[in-house]
Each structure stands twice: as C-alpha cells, then as structure tokens.
C-alpha cells in the first residue's frame, strides 16, 4: 500500500496537498508495520480505517441515475459516497484506482460526459444524469483502445497502479488538443503521478496516438 501512495507531492493548486498530512499517514503506516512484529492485535487495530476519515452519523440515502460505460443504473447512496467509492465498492468496477483519495495523484481519473475528472473529489449524487466512462469502458469488447495499445507498445507502465488513470487522462489530453508536443503532454498530464517513473514512455505513447492520427 505504501508503494502505491505518492509521497513526493508538492502542492497541487486546488489545494489538496499537505506535506504534514502525508507524513502523518506515513507514520501511521510505519506504526502499523512496527505493530505487526510486536503484537498482531495492535496491528489489526491500527489497520482499521482512521476514525477521522470514516463516515459517521445517519445520512438519508439519496436516489439518482447514472449511465456507466453505456449501462443505465438507478442507484441509492449515502450522499457522502464519492463517485470513486460508488464505482469500486458498490458496483465492483475496481479498475478505477484509489491512490491518495485527496485529488493529488490522478489514479481515480474517469470521464464524466466525456471530460476527465477525479472520481475521489466528487460525491456520486452530484453526477445525477451524467454519463460515466471508466477504464472498463475504454476498450470495445476485445479490441483495445488505441491508447491502451500504445501504452503496451511503448511500455508506458511498470507496476500498473496509476495506469487506468493515466489512460483515461491521456485519452482526454488528446481530445482536448493538448498533446501536440512532449512539453505539452508533460504539462497537461501533470495531474497523473507515476511512482515507478514511467513518464518518458507514457509521453511517447500519447505522442504516438496523437501523431498516428488514431481516434482517441
């Protein structure tokens, strides 16, 4: 889990980052590991979700409609449920990843009405009536999306955890007309972090799709 959490973030502009909170998380995780060697019980305890972050209180469920990867859904959730948690926990669409859960890493990038957004920073109820595309909806059956092909061709990943978010963002980057040069891609893909450092190959893959004239 620690490997999946970017720890070298400076401050994204929407203001979601803070060194201290990351450090705190790191401490918690280190404690959890230390606890394991001392006492399995204390490990279990620290491994529980942080009380600060767990929902509490009674919220009335709210009903709403979403189209996800072309399929219509009638849903009912606690309004605190983020779009990310709805996809992963309620609908089993675990291709969309939870990296930081605070809008800093881009692992949860999905398309809403064709635009890339962060699923972790949106309550699911707010998306009522919208069309969501997740990584599961990018390929056409067995035929991979050209961007997926290009990521394979250029080896645009190592561990693969950030890849669904990178792909969703990359497809948008081309659609937005922001993939005209390496510098352009670096700038407009900056919301997607890759701890393995696959950036050069990700950039190559996107440029290949763009210059190959393939439809993103």
């Amino acid at each position, binding site marked *: 889990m620690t490997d999946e959490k970017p720890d070298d973030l400076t401050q*994204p*502009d*929407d203001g979601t980052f803070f060194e201290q909170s990351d450090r705190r998380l790191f401490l918690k995780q280190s404690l959890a590991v230390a606890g394991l060697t001392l006492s399995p019980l204390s490990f279990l305890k620290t491994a529980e979700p942080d009380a600060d972050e767990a929902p509490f209180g009674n*919220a009335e469920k709210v009903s709403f409609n979403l189209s996800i990867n072309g399929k219509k859904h009638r849903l009912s959730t606690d309004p605190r449920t983020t779009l990310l948690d709805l996809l992963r926990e309620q609908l089993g669409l675990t291709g969309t990843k939870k990296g930081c859960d605070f809008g800093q890493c881009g692992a949860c990038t999905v398309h809403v009405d064709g635009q890339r957004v962060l699923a972790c*920073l949106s309550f699911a109820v707010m998306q009522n009536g919208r069309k969501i595309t997740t990584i599961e909806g990018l390929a056409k059956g067995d035929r991979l999306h050209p961007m997926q092909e290009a990521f394979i061709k250029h080896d645009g990943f190592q561990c693969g955890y950030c890849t669904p978010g990178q792909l969703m963002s990359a497809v948008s980057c081309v659609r937005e007309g922001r993939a005209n040069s390496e510098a352009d891609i670096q*700038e407009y893909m900056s919301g997607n972090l890759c701890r393995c450092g696959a950036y050069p190959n990700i950039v190559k893959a996107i440029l290949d799709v763009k210059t190959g004239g393939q439809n993103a």
Partner: protein
Amino acid sequence: MKAFEYVRPSTIREAIELVATNPKAQFIAGGTNLIDLMKHGIAAPEKLVDINHLPLKKIEKRDDFLRIGALVLNSEVASHKRVLASHPLLAQALNAGASGQLRNMATVGGNLLQRTRCPYFYDRAFPCNKRIPGSGCGALGGINRMHAIFGVPEKPDPKSCIAVHPSDLSVALSALEATVLVQGHRGERQIPMADFYRLPNNRPEQDTTLSNGELITAVEIPDAVFQKHVHYLKVRDRASYAFALVSVAAALDIDQNRIKTARLSMGGVAHKPWRLFDAEKMLTGQAVSETVFRQAAEAAMQGARAFEHNAYKLRVAPNAIVQALKLAAGLS
C-alpha cells in the same frame, strides 16, 4: 466525514434561501476544495446545497465587459475563444493552476472561494486560527516556507494567520480589475476584486467579504487593452501542478515603446491577491526598459517581511516581477 443533507434546488433564489437561513449549510459546485476539506474533517456542513444545475454557465459579451458565469468551468474559460482573444491573461493563469482533471471540475466561483490555507490549516494536530479561531498559529513558529511576506504586521498577531491565497485566477482577475457579482437574500451587489478578499487581522476564519448565503453569480472583466502585452509567471517547486511560491500577473498597455497603463498583481505572497499599485504608478508613462522594471519591482517590495523559512521570497518576488514584465513587454 459527518453526515449531511444533500439538496439540489432548481432556482438561484431557493439556493440562496437555503444557505442564508442556515449557518451550517454550504453551497457546493465543483467540490474540489470543499470535499477535500470535508474528508479531512475541517469543513463539516450539515446541509450541502448543490448549485451545479443553476443557470450560471454562460460567457457573455456585454457593453464594455465580459461576463463569466460563476459555474463556468476553469477549463471552459481557459479554452474559450473570446477569452483567449480579449483576456489572454485569464487563460494563462488558469492553465498554470491545478491539473487537467481539476480544471474540468472547478468552477469560476469555486476557484475564487477556495480557502486561503496552509499545511497547518489541514493538520488538526496543530493549532490554526483559521480552523479554530483563537487556537494559535502553527506556522508562526513552525515551517513557514510557503507563507506570506505582505500584509503581515511588524509584530505578527499570534491570533491571526500568515497563509497565502492559492488561486491563480484571482491574481489575474485582480490585475484586470474584475468585479464579482454576488446575490444574497437582500439583493445583488457588485464587489470590486480589490475588496473581495480580506487580510486576516482579527478574523482569520473569514477569507472574503461575502456574507453567509451570498452566492457569486458571475465575474465581470472590463474590456481592456491588455491583449498583447500580458504574462502570468508562476514560480513553484516543480514544473507543473503545484501551488505558487510566488506568481505575477503582468498586463501592460504599450504605445510606441511607452507604457500607458500597467497592472500588476502577485500570488503566493499574501492572504489575498496582492496588487502592486506603487509599481504600477511608477511604470506609467515610462519607456519600456529592464531598468524601469527593476525599479518598479523594488518599489513593489516595500513593506515585505519574511519569516524564518520564507526569506527567499524577498529575492524571488522582485525577480519574478521583472521577468513577468519583460515577458509581457516582449523583452525576453
């Protein structure tokens, strides 16, 4: 996260009433700042009033200004043809901020209303006067590398705040002398950018001059002559997707190598966008030259004050001003 009631009113009037009559209710638009704060347990509204469906999504050319609806997305403004033609500084500032995903979520109104904040505001293990008024300031004796150099009294008030406002858009709007249109249950009012944000003083929990229940409906930017000679310069720890350490919005009206009008505003240096009136005055009527820019930058730095870790801003800021002016004037 605390439970909240979610409501989606269909009219502006209804939305305003819902928030104006309940101090624990809040508007939500893009949610990129508010949801983050709610996840951290810093904001805990009992009622969330979703305004995303309200008719505030137009960019319109009016008599002598451009009106941008409060719910227009940051990405929509940044790629709008009219904006690019008449107010390119806005697009530059917006594209320097956040990430592609966040710009597709964040609205103009929400961008202006993101909290002025620092790491201590987020870290509940530390005191923070903005989070809990009167609790103290973690940054004063802590790591204050990101913090303010302007608008800070000689003896910093331990009950106040030294955080900086992180919006790039508001820095550009401040330089362009935009007006914020606001609607409350007592009617509408127009707030010039210069009066929209406040210094923390004895109410650090209050970032703006809005009253509870007042809703931003639009911003209006006067038609200006600032198309050709503008530049938004953002200095940050990494090349992209980071807050400004210092940013400069520079807009010049140059006629035959002489500056007719200059507008300058800085981000990352104060609790609010920091307009450089003295430097603007100094530049007016002058011939374009690096020497003049340097003099203006020096004038701009009067009254700046550093804390333990942000003295570097006293050097970065004037250099950034000069560089932004040179780029705006086409000197470099």
